[in-house]
């Protein structure tokens, strides 16, 4: 049994994430109509939205603290929201504004919020090794923080993920690897490129527990993650989880999805982990008005973040030349001490 407060929190995260993605879609498409031009409109660049993935974000992150590290891939918003990333500054970053998390330098695939130990990277599976490194740091410091690396089912064939499984296992690191299986890697269906149907079976080759949650259900994810995160926190080593989710939108905005059977699209649209969780909440005694309030609050939060972000200044071009280094180029010193080196060449 999951406590009502926890169900409610997950629900709030999930409706926030869903609304966020829907609103970003609208904003993104603005200025890209009628002809879609990726370089036009208020949000530049590629945009990978995660509608349909929410349960994987909320169900896992519900177990995490601010000092637990999460690395996400190119489709990061729902995870960032569940992890508690500053919504305004994240949104400002996506709009490429000066007050964004990365001052407009990173963009939507490169969101860093050290306050809640969140980072993401646009290179497939390359968030896994740094997550293992965060786990290593926790172990060396003898704290009970854990690290979670998210990846897509298309990423389980990439060396960075596979090497990280061994690295985490051999050092018993407090790491949970979470595969979000949305059946597609851009246009490639899983069976065309991967030997396994169930990605959590990769664990079998690495002496690590693996578990698949094959229904897009926040409570089921919550339960599986409780065990996995608990195992990590209790210093019992890593776990591999796979969660079935659904891609309700194109791979990126502008993706015509012409490769995708309509039936598959329709099925994805039908499965809705948010509605499922609403049912769970109702069963736990939450009434529709309360659910409506939660939704309204989430929507208001999203609107506020978007409004705020759009109001923020665009970066001054000269700022492009800043933030290359944290220390000066010369390192911590800019002068060489004066030694009398006998017989030295100086």
């Amino acid at each position, binding site marked *: 049994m999951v406590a009502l407060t926890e169900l409610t929190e997950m629900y709030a995260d999930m409706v926030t994430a869903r609304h966020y993605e829907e609103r970003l879609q609208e904003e993104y498409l603005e200025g890209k109509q009628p002809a*879609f031009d*990726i370089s036009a409109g208020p949000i530049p660049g590629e945009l990978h939205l995660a509608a349909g993935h929410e349960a994987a974000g909320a169900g896992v992150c519900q177990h995490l603290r601010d000092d637990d590290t999460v690395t996400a891939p190119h489709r990061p918003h729902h995870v960032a929201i569940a992890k508690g990333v500053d919504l305004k500054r994240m949104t400002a970053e996506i709009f490429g504004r000066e007050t964004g998390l990365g001052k*407009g330098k*990173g963009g939507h695939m490169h969101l860093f919020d050290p306050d809640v130990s969140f980072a993401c990277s646009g290179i497939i599976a390359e968030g896994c090794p740094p997550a293992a490194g965060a786990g290593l740091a926790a172990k060396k410091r003898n704290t009970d923080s854990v690290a979670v690396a998210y990846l897509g089912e298309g990423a389980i064939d990439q060396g960075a993920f596979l090497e990280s499984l061994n690295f985490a296992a051999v050092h018993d690191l407090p790491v949970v690897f979470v595969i979000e299986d949305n059946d597609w890697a851009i246009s*490639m269906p899983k069976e065309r490129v991967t030997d396994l149907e169930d990605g959590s079976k990769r664990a079998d080759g690495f002496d690590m527990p693996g578990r698949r949650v094959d229904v897009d259900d926040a409570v089921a994810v919550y339960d599986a993650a409780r065990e996995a995160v608990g195992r990590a926190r209790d210093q019992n080593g890593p776990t591999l989880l796979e969660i079935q989710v659904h891609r309700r939108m194109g791979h990126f905005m502008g993706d015509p999805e012409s490769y995708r059977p309509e039936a598959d699209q329709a099925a994805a649209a039908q499965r809705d982990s948010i509605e499922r969780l609403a049912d769970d909440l109702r069963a736990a005694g939450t009434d529709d008005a309360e659910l409506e309030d939660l939704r309204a609050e989430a929507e208001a939060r999203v609107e506020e973040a978007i409004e705020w972000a759009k109001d923020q200044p*665009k970066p001054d071009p000269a700022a*492009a030349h800043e933030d290359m280094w944290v220390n000066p180029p010369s390192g911590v010193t800019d002068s060489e001490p004066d030694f009398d080196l006998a017989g030295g060449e100086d």
Partner: protein
Amino acid sequence: MAEEITRELTMSRAMVEAIAGEMRADDEVFYMGEDVADYGGIFDSTEGLREEFGYDRVMDVPISETAYLGAAVGAAQEGMRPIAELMFVDFFGVAMDQIYNQMAKNTYMSGGNVSVPMVLTAAVGGTYNDAAQHSQTLYGTFAHMPGMKVVVPSTAYEAKGLMHNAIRDDDPVVYLFHKRLMGIGWLPAPDGPKTPVPETDYTIPFGSADVKHAGEDVTIVTLGLHVHRALEAAESLAEDGIGAEVIDLRSLVPLDTDTIVESVEKTGTLVVVDEDYRSYGVTGEIVASVADEAVGALDSVERVALPDVPIPYARSLENEVVADAGDIEAAVRRTQ
């Protein structure tokens, strides 16, 4: 007198036409990459090929660049002629050992006993705010390490002729196509890259730079997208009576030093324009190559390239680091 060619193609159509031509002529040619089958390549590099040649010859592959680029090396060493695509050149780091320690070196390390007749294709370049991990050209990185011929088409005409030569070549060729030039619906190209393209198969030799615009006052050496930006600058400079010679390198390895030196000996002024990072890259090499041959001819030098920062996301920031025609023009004016 040659027949006049009027049919115009986008760069992506020209590239695909060359690939299709070679696939028809030789069963051993095949294409591997992510999203190259049903999707037709994220940047239209294989549009329509799966429909004609099927999944076996236009293969979607796992997101395992080391495995599939290495598999291309292995198949090439067996005598097949694979073309393998790295979706964005920025992903080189997950597979650089196969690219550099195997594909590029095996011929030399075997004393020519083995050849690796493969083409590595990769999309390059920015200008659409895809940030630091998806906007690079890495021209200098690939050109620096010996063993790969490195070519960069700037128009449809070059895209086809360079691709035919690349596939037929028994050596590994890296073919870097600029996203902004492909003529993709959602990523509108400037005017230049869509050119007349002969229907016939033809090959453009590597190491033959092309003078895209003649001039007497300044030599602008560039490649890829910036050929078009340099041409724009040349037009505008011409209005002020400054004659800019625009040289399109077309290949970085081999490098056509002769054409560059000849031009600089005439103009005395060298402006190198590049979409890669400034330091330790293309601009340095071009300047030094001219200095090697004709240091006395060099009266004035400018380098226009990405400053040494990762490519930022926000439009104002990316525009600051990627040179436009105005930046090129300004650099030329500084030399006059």
